């Protein structure tokens, strides 16, 4: 038999162990809650980390006219007029097998390759060739020495007259039905600027077509539009001209302020990057503002030291590389963020890898410097999230949320302002509807209702609190919205008809004997109102079509459109306010009713004893005393309305409009997260922005609820002292 001291010591050990386990478990849970907040923050934080630039290899490679980087960053192609196309391995710098073929060396002209690897060459025989540099990689092969560099040479175009300088070339891919690829060139010839279009094959000599320009404009650089129909020209006088080549019409012109030295285009090619001889960097676009088009600068970047020599744009997002003789920078077009700024050893050519993560520069002496750039989220900045941003194609800065689009060069637009606006709008409409109903209802229940009635009302409201928001949202979206659309006029008329019904019924009520009224009326007013409510419904069903016919020409929707210019959306804020009211009313009701019932009896008795009526007591004594509790109830209700997801998802059109009107929908932060996060690429920009939105929701509701709780505790302590 175990001795008592054994049992005792075992009990003590179990006690110590359980104390340890429970404390550990409790601390773990609390830690888990904190960890949740930290995890969400951690997933959102990389949006705001500054980009990191690391200098990589420096090599000697001999003189060259242009560079092209492969996507993997493991190989670079060097082109020069004397030696043609050759490739080196990065970061070692060892040469890779030279490709064969191509026009005879030495070449007469060479344009540096763009990020896609297209370069224009005039061979020794004077014919124009286009080279598309590509690497053929065996699947899964990571060693560049096993890749094949085979530049695809096309062309052999013969020109009637050799130009002084070819300014820019545009390749127009062939469409279907056998039309082949064509090349458009613009060049400086003996007496001005000329252009031509030629099929990309050896054929008869092609003549130059002169481009008539206003006199006094010496063109220093040119850029074709994406479809080859328009040319943007930069002049030495500091002007930018947009010309339609076929007709020769001047579409637009703008002042740049200093002689234009280089032109480039970001991904998508719907705007123009301009660099001047004094280092000014700007982006110009021709966009619609109001009725007409305007060609003007829509982004400015910090100046470079020295004339801007060239541009290269990334193929993944809107970042671009610009360099002068002394420095090279990578900027993002839309957020105007400077992602990288490094100093150079001399003038030369530079290139950026297609993903924008590796930059290579070769100076005139053949020294190659490279840098790696790690900027995973350049399209987001604090200003873009919260301020108006000027996007490509828009006439002026706007708040836009548009996270995905159909094409590869679509620019995602991440302004949180429309979403926050939508959240506030939904909350406003919900509170507008719920607050008066809940507070007045709570006042009635705690001050005027009989105890029997109170025992029915409180469980009923608790049931209302238990309604799943999916069911509320489903009813709002599929039942209430069509019903409101059919009977909007009736719904608007209802309060008036209710007043009318009350006015009709009131004399009948006052005719009833006082003892009857005291016994069955006082404390049960709410039940007597129910038939009045139904009577009012009947009256609206009769009056509604009448009013619509008389005042709105038979159809309220056309009347709204013509008289007020408002389009009626079926799923609009009225429906959302009503449905969210269902969710918010019980919360405000319960807490307010608690607060109102906790007002010390001594206060109410004193007021009644002084001769005040029950209403005067309720309105002037109880309500103000309990107002901190009602305030706290409103805070908690606000918190619920802000975070409500399912109702908003189902009852609004989920359009991110910024309009306070009640007849259109909204998109809230919570519904946006629910819709977009399942498809957001892991650790991409959209993913992190959605985590940021979740963090904001968490913070806001937490703060609201904490304030409410503190107010309630303060109130409790105050009552204990009365």
């Amino acid at each position, binding site marked *: 038999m175990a001795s008592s001291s054994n049992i005792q010591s075992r009990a003590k050990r179990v006690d110590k162990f359980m104390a340890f386990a*429970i404390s550990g*478990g409790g601390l773990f849970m*609390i830690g888990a809650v904190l960890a949740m907040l930290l995890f969400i923050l951690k997933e959102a934080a990389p949006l705001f980390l500054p980009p990191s630039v690391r200098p990589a290899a420096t090599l000697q490679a001999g003189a060259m006219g242009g560079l092209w980087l492969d996507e993997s960053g493991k190989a670079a192609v060097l082109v020069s007029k004397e030696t043609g196309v050759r490739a080196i391995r990065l970061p070692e710098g060892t040469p890779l097998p030279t490709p064969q073929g191509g026009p005879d060396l030495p070449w007469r002209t060479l344009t540096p390759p763009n990020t896609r690897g297209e370069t224009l060459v005039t061979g020794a025989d004077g014919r124009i060739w286009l080279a598309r540099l590509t690497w053929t990689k065996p699947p899964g092969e990571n060693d560049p020495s096993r890749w094949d560099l085979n530049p695809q040479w096309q062309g052999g175009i013969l020109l009637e007259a050799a130009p002084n300088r070819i300014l820019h070339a545009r390749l127009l891919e062939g469409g279907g039905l056998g039309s082949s690829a064509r090349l458009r060139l613009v060049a400086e010839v003996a007496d001005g600027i000329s252009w031509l279009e030629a099929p990309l094959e050896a054929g008869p000599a092609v003549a130059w077509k002169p481009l008539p320009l206003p006199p006094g404009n010496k063109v220093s650089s040119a850029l074709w539009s994406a479809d080859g129909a328009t040319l943007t020209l930069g002049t030495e006088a500091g002007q930018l001209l947009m010309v339609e080549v076929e007709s020769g019409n001047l579409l637009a012109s703008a002042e740049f302020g200093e002689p234009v030295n280089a032109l480039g285009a970001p991904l998508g090619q719907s705007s123009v990057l301009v660099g001047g001889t004094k280092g000014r960097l700007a982006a110009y676009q021709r966009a619609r503002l109001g009725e007409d088009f305007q060609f003007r600068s829509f982004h400015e970047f910090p100046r470079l030291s020295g004339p801007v020599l060239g541009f290269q744009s990334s193929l993944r997002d809107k970042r671009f590389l610009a360099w002068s003789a002394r420095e090279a920078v990578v900027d993002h077009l839309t957020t105007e963020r400077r992602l990288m700024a490094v100093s150079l050893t001399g003038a030369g050519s530079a290139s950026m890898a297609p993903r924008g993560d590796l930059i290579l520069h070769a100076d005139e002496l053949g020294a190659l410097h490279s840098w790696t750039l790690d900027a995973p989220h350049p399209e987001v900045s604090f200003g873009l999230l919260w301020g108006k941003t000027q996007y490509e194609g828009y006439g002026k800065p706007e708040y836009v949320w548009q996270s995905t689009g159909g094409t590869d060069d679509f620019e995602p637009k991440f302004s949180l302002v429309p979403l926050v606006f939508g959240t506030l709008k939904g909350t406003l409409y919900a509170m507008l509807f719920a607050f008066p109903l809940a507070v007045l209802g709570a006042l009635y229940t705690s001050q005027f209702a009989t105890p029997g009635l109170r025992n029915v009302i409180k469980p009923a409201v608790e049931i209302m609190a238990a309604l799943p928001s999916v069911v509320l949202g489903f009813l709002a979206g599929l039942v209430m919205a069509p019903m409101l659309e059919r009977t909007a006029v009736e719904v608007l008329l209802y309060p008036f008809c209710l007043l009318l019904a009350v006015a009709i019924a009131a004399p009948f009520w006052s005719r009833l004997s006082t003892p009857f009224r005291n016994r069955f009326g006082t404390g049960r007013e709410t039940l007597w109102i129910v038939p009045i409510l139904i009577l009012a419904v009947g009256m609206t069903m009769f009056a509604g079509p009448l009013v619509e016919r008389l005042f709105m020409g038979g159809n309220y929707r056309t009347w709204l459109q013509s008289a007020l210019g408002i389009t009626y959306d079926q799923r609009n804020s009225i429906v959302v306010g009503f449905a969210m009211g269902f969710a918010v009313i019980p919360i405000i009701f319960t807490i307010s009713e608690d607060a109102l019932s906790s007002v010390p009896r001594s206060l109410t008795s004193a007021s009644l004893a002084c001769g005040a009526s029950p209403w005067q007591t309720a*309105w002037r004594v109880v309500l103000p005393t309990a107002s901190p509790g009602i305030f706290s109830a409103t805070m908690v209700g606000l918190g619920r309305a802000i975070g409500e997801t399912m109702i908003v998802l189902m009852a609004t059109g989920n359009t991110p409009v910024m309009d306070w009107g009640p007849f259109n929908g909204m998109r809230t932060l919570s519904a946006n997260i*629910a819709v977009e996060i399942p498809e957001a690429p892991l650790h991409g920009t959209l993913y992190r922005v959605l985590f940021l939105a979740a963090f904001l929701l968490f913070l806001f509701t937490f703060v609201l609820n904490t304030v409410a709780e503190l107010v309630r505790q303060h109130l409790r302590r105050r009552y204990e002292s009365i």
Partner: protein
Amino acid sequence: MTRLAESLRRGGIFVWFAGTSLAFCLAMILGLVGYIAARGLGFFWPSPLVQVRSAEGPVLGEITGHEPARGEETGKLQFRVGNRDIYGQDFRWVPTVGLGAPEEPKDAVLLERTEYGPFIGRITAISHQGTVAVQGAGALAEAARRLPESRRLLEEVQATEKGKVGELNRRMERLRIDRKGLEAKGDQAAIQALDTQVAALQSTYEALQTTIDQTRTEAKSWVLDLETADGQKKELPLSSVVRIVAANNLSVTDRLGIYLSRMWEFLADDPRESNTEGGIFPAIFGTVMMVLVMSVLVVPLGVVTALYLREYARQGWLVRAVRVAVNNLAGVPSIVFGVFGLGFFVYTLGGGIDRLFFADALPTPTYGTGGIIWASLTLALLTVPVVVVATEEALGAVARSQREASLAMGATKWQTLWNVVLPSAAPGILTGLILAIARGAGEVAPLMLTGVVKLAPSMPLDGTFPFFHFDRKFMHLGFHIYDVGFQSPNSEAAKPMVFMASLLLLAVVVVLNIFALNLRRKLRARLGGSTF
């Protein structure tokens, strides 16, 4: 005039005003519950098939809607004409002007089918393996006689497909994954042994398939000849028919029988026609499973935290702050928990588990995608505050005298807790658990991100080892409502399902809440206590 001013000052009218707002709130609640109940419960009652002569020809169907004349538009009647394979749409609006007198033809029949929704028309003949067996009026009775047998054969086929063939597929998949692992190691002998196993399974599968084909042909041997109200003809194998309803020829007991059978089908069968017909059993089962796993997780976590806060932690401002923080967690939007569940549980933890234990199956994720375990964990985190608050209240309500008596008799703190305090607090903890379950059953937003799907191919609990599959996706009643109502191709036809599912969910949540709150009220009345 002064009397009016006086009565306004005394404010009697404002009491009525306040009473009106309350009446409005009560009307809202009753209206909502009543509406869902009325529309939900009414759908399964078989309504008569009405035939009218409209401008486009005869229209036969159930009357499902009515719009009165309004302005220049005439009144309209909505008919459910069925026959989606013939007409392209289930419902049709017919203007009421110029309609002939409505009739209820006695031989009109509604056939519930496995595809294309119901057929509404007449059965002209029934044939067996090509030859006509019965024609004309007796065909309906013959079809009704043959229906149970053909249903049984079809169910047999389905059971074999799901059971035996499903098992074969699982084993083949397992072998394929093993083979992938062996190929990496280059073990030729083992690979050959595996290949022979695969070949054996393949031949078993082919034998099963022949049996299935034979049974199916047998089930399809009876064919119905059908005709619609406007004379279009169609042939339909009897095996595609789920139920025959001769809607105009039923007595009240017949109708009640059909009503109950449809109700049972709703609760116990699988869905068909992309969730717009059939039953919601998988959704009910998935919800119950998830709630069970969530309860198993949330009760220990919540009770331990409450015990720590109240019994073991040093009471000071820090503990009060922590208590406020845990309470306020209940107010944080559920979507935030969903986001955390997706980012941490699914991608981080799940991805890690995949890389450690299921690397062979990659890139197809096993735990690195939504599943019932992650959904339950997320909801457990969501409902922990509810349990913590309820447990703290319950612990506080236990009289000091009980505790002190136990300690005075020499019990340790843990013995007091386990033997005296917790049993007294158990009803309170139970209240918290029920409230947590009610909350968890109704939340949908976090589940959308962590593992709920529109249609789950298999359930998380089945007969194959390890019996409870934590990584499987599941169906949920609340998500079913959202999906069928808003993302189904035929939302008009789906409305009955959505209303019934809403009613079911509402009933479950409301009953749980009433039960929990009654329990809490009884406890408060009994114990009083300092925290209440």
